[in-house]
């Protein structure tokens, strides 16, 4: 698979960039729409959790925004990957390319969008007078881990959705649940015992936790947490690739 991705790197780049452009070309405000969405989400959650149920979290708006940005990376990435095969019928039926390229480029588009959102987060952080500390060096590693999770899940979802079109609706519900279960607006580190252990089995929950630690609270990420996140992302990639390669031969007949 890696050989294929390298061989077709020009195509991967082209597809990722053109998808990125198409996403924004048709709207007047272009890029700003994509940034407005997380900001509105921030506003709603902030009003609810800062005023109605006061959170004790220091810099809660940054806590929220980082959570939203990283969760969005996962949610948008997998939603785009889900359509990765179906949205390009011509490239499946009329020419042969290794089909994982379509999924990989959609994950790459999601990465570009996530970097943009992270930029907005950076601006907010600067406005709030909070400077990142040296522990921020973990952030690229965290991004890479989410990218592997997005790519792995998209391989499975994109393939399954080609055969069973309602996978997209099921996945939308799972994403809704995941938003709550990953602690986008809750600090799981204040929880104790078995509940905490259970919640942190979800790699996204753990990723959100450690990224806040290293970006906002100047804490060193434990190697156990890093290993757990990276290992689970690789397991997801392996399972995703397995499902994808089982279903791939019939894509042209199902699209």
């Amino acid at each position, binding site marked *: 698979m890696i050989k294929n991705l390298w*061989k077709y790197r*020009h195509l991967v780049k*082209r*597809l990722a960039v053109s998808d990125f452009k198409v996403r924004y070309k048709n709207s007047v405000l272009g890029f700003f729409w994509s940034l407005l969405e997380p900001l509105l989400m921030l506003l709603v959650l902030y009003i609810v959790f800062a005023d109605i149920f006061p959170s004790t979290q220091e810099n809660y708006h940054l806590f929220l925004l980082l959570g939203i940005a990283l969760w969005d990376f996962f949610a948008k990435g997998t939603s785009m990957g889900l359509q990765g095969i179906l949205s390009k019928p011509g490239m499946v039926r*009329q020419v*042969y390319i290794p089909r994982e390229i379509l999924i990989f480029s959609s994950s790459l588009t999601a990465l570009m969008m996530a970097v943009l959102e992270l930029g907005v987060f950076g601006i907010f952080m600067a406005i709030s007078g909070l400077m990142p500390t040296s522990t921020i060096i973990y952030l690229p590693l965290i991004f890479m881990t989410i990218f592997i999770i997005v790519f792995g899940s998209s391989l499975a979802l994109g393939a399954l959705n080609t055969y069973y*079109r309602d996978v997209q609706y099921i996945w939308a519900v799972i994403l809704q649940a995941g938003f709550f279960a990953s602690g986008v607006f809750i600090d799981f580190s204040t929880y104790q015992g078995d509940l905490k252990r259970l919640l942190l089995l979800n790699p996204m929950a753990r990723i959100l936790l450690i990224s806040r630690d290293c970006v906002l609270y100047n804490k060193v990420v434990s190697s156990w947490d890093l290993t757990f996140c990276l290992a689970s992302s690789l397991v997801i990639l392996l399972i995703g690739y397995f499902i994808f390669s089982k279903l791939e031969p019939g894509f*042209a007949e199902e699209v």
Partner: protein
Amino acid sequence: MDIIEAKNIWKNYKIPHEKRNTLFEILYGLLDTKMGYETFTALKDINFTVKKGEWLGVIGHNGSGKSTLLKVIANTIRPTKGKITVNGKITSFLELGVGFQPDLTAKENIKIYGAIMGLSDTEIDDRIDGILEFGGLTRFKDTKIKNFSSGMIVRLAFSTAVQIEPEILLLDEVLAVGDLDFQKKCFEVFDRYREMDKTVVYVSHDLGTVQRFCDKVLLLNHGEQIGIGSPEEMISLYKSIA
């Protein structure tokens, strides 16, 4: 050297009595045992080889498996049984297209196609003008494909396919949609390819061009290989089974 080698190729399609495309329908279908599917055999034990520089024509009635065979060669669908070996890079022109995306402009689509064929950015840029000119579409280079007429899409697809120097070219009914002018251009390209020793698999109902360009012809009928041989022989055989 054999560029394409097909050995005992079979292709079955499942035709469900009711198309099930969702998990829900499949769960529902488990309760309802009456529904099932039929197997349709599109290709039955096809064998042939194509050497470098050879033109293989494929003829037969509608539904005889010509297009399925081309898709199997292109690797977009996989045979149920048998083995196909292709030595070289394939440029395919299937279902009258080369994988364009409707939301992108002509220029962007050509660039993506060039990338599929492994061309670098500068190599593509060098050819874009030639491609657009060949298809007579220079004025529409920044128009989205979805606003093209069907004739324009086919012209663009065909010119893209032939201008990006293919090694092996698969052509399915190219001439069916172009006007006389475009057909003339196509023939010029075909003549050039013959000189350049390109390998081509050519599917067509136009027996005149098959006779003119192909070295050998494969005749299919209801998925079966009736024969493979000289164009004259196969065309008269084809007429006799009509």
